[in-house]
């Protein structure tokens, strides 16, 4: 039976045009299937490691998932802000160890701007409790200092000392600019593989400063305060978008959460990042499963094509089969030959699909990094992916039973001399 594989390979090569198309179809569908699975895992890992060591995220009352998305991942926009005194009440609470206030709303050439305090550089953790580290320069000291994430600096080619201008709003192009108040890059952070990389960090005072002479989202015409005079004003923020909170005892998180939720006079929401992430995955899980099911369907379609092509070609191969029978092949052997051909094509398709996946990964990686801050790298196949591949091969072999059986019946009927 060992000679079947060599024979099947040569036979397949003989029909390489049609089978090649099938291999391509299977390869594309396998690439899709593995791609969906890998994107799923990479997204989860990327998201999960964006925040660490934070007990609660506090923001205006909205859905927990939405709060997570804009506070941690800078995706989407906040519906409302929280007042400064509400934030201070929380910061002063005896259960609280540290807080990081954040303010969102501006952008720079497509990258979100984050207003925050020095606490950000002290307390923010990501991944496996890793702190932020500067690759160059230092955190902001002056009002108009900015600290750039690694991706921002790399993509826009900025260095410490460069001047940048912020835009009002998030959207890319065509936004009004705070042109009269340029910022100086004081520091650049090391790469983290999280949304921090694509963020421009400034102080909360800076956010106040650039909006001093603005009213309701636009500059007041005929009235502007020059940059050098802003410091004369009180730059304490009136509102912030959200706050990251660290507690003295993690077990007290529920108590703190209730305190925030019940805070009088201000609709607030406090979420546990771990729980909100799980909720996000539950919601996204429906879409993920749908995508996976669809990709599986596509693979089945590809394999159905294989069956169709092989079945269609069987009639022409009756003489070939008769020759094999004459030489001593059994009808079961003919079945084995067809099955081996099917297995061969499926394996080839899977291998080609993996190669295509690699190509796709290399293509998509820079996009994922710059748009979402998710790191996508070419990796060895994970166990889950290998299992999927195994399933594909199994289905391919099972599908090959159809032409195999047909060939078996044909060989029995034809005997040594097919009536063609």
């Amino acid at each position: 039976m060992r000679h079947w594989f060599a024979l099947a390979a040569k036979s397949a090569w003989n029909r390489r045009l049609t089978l090649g198309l099938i291999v391509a179809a299977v390869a594309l569908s396998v690439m899709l299937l593995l791609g969906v699975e890998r994107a799923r895992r990479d997204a989860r890992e990327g998201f999960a490691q964006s925040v660490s060591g934070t007990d609660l995220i506090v923001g205006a009352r909205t859905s927990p998932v939405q709060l997570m998305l804009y506070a941690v991942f800078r995706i989407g926009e906040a519906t409302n802000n929280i007042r400064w005194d509400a934030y201070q009440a929380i910061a002063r609470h005896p259960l609280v160890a540290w807080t990081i206030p954040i303010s969102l709303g501006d952008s720079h050439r497509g990258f979100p701007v984050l207003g925050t305090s020095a606490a950000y550089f002290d307390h923010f953790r990501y991944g496996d409790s890793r702190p932020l580290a500067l690759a160059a320069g230092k955190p902001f000291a002056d009002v108009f200092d900015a600290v750039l994430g690694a991706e921002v600096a790399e993509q826009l080619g900025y260095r410490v000392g460069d001047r940048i201008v912020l835009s009002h709003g998030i959207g890319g192009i065509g936004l009004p600019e705070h042109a009269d108040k340029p910022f100086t890059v004081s520091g650049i952070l090391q790469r983290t593989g999280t949304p921090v990389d694509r963020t421009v960090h400034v102080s909360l005072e800076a956010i106040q400063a650039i909006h001093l002479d603005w009213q309701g989202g636009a500059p007041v015409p005929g009235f502007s305060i020059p940059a050098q005079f802003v410091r004369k004003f009180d730059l304490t923020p009136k509102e912030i978008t959200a706050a990251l909170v660290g507690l003295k005892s993690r077990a007290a998180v529920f108590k703190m959460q209730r305190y925030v939720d019940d805070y009088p006079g201000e609709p607030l929401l406090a979420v546990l990042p771990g729980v909100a992430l799980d909720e996000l995955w539950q919601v996204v899980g429906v879409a993920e499963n749908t995508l996976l099911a669809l990709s599986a369907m596509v693979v089945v379609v590809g394999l159905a094509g294989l069956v169709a092509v092989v079945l269609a070609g069987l009639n022409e191969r009756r003489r070939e089969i008769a020759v094999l029978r004459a030489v001593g092949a059994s009808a079961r052997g003919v079945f084995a030959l067809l099955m081996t051909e099917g297995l061969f094509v499926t394996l080839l398709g899977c291998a080609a699909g993996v190669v295509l996946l690699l190509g796709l990964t290399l293509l998509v990686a820079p996009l994922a990094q710059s748009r979402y801050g998710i790191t996508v790298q070419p990796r060895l196949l994970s166990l889950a992916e290998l299992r999927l591949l195994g399933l594909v091969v199994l289905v391919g072999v099972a599908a090959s039973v159809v032409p195999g059986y047909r060939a078996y019946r044909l060989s029995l009927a034809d005997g040594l001399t097919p009536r063609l």
Partner: protein
Amino acid sequence: MVSGMPPAIVELTETLYRWSPGETPCLDIPAFAMRAGERLFLYGPSGSGKSTLLGVLGGVLVPERGSVRVLGNELRGASAPARDRFRADHVGLIFQQFNLIPYLSALENVLLACRFSRRREERAAGEGGARAAAARLMHHLDLEPALHSRLATRLSVGQQQRVAAARALIGRPELVIADEPTSALDAERQAIFLELLLRECTQAGSALLFVSHDRRLARAFDRETDISSITRSNAYREAA
């Protein structure tokens, strides 16, 4: 020289075959035998039941009744895989055309017989390796070395038939069955082919059952017989 007849390698007794129950049988043979090394010309035009006979002798068709003994082995009761193995080990087959696997080379086609029969492979290998034996055999059949690695589809009909003959003969099977092997060749090539085939069969010690509708070729054979004289069935007469 030991006196006495060589052993019978084929013995059919009261063998009856019909395609489906209720139909007229297409083969009804009270007795048929061939001896080892015998060269038998069997006259049988298409429709005479010769394909059925070949199928039965090859172990692909199982008669409804009777006995089919090849080399002393009763084929009728044997399982399909056993019959297939038997055919691979002891019988070489040549057909009128399309004898070869199109995507294999001439040499690979010849060696196909060894792939399916360990016995024939060993017998061929004993003469210096299966490949060498195949090459030698092809040389005897007037196929020069340049043709050995050529794909079967690139060979002329005459060359294809000779490759088929080489495959039927490699490993020296006891019985070679040739079904109209020369019918697709022109007259000149027919004679050459027949001569080569007979010579190699003698060399290999194989019996040859040569089926054809061209009686002129019968001259070279030990025995000539008509299929209608072997079988009682009326299929031939009806088809005529």
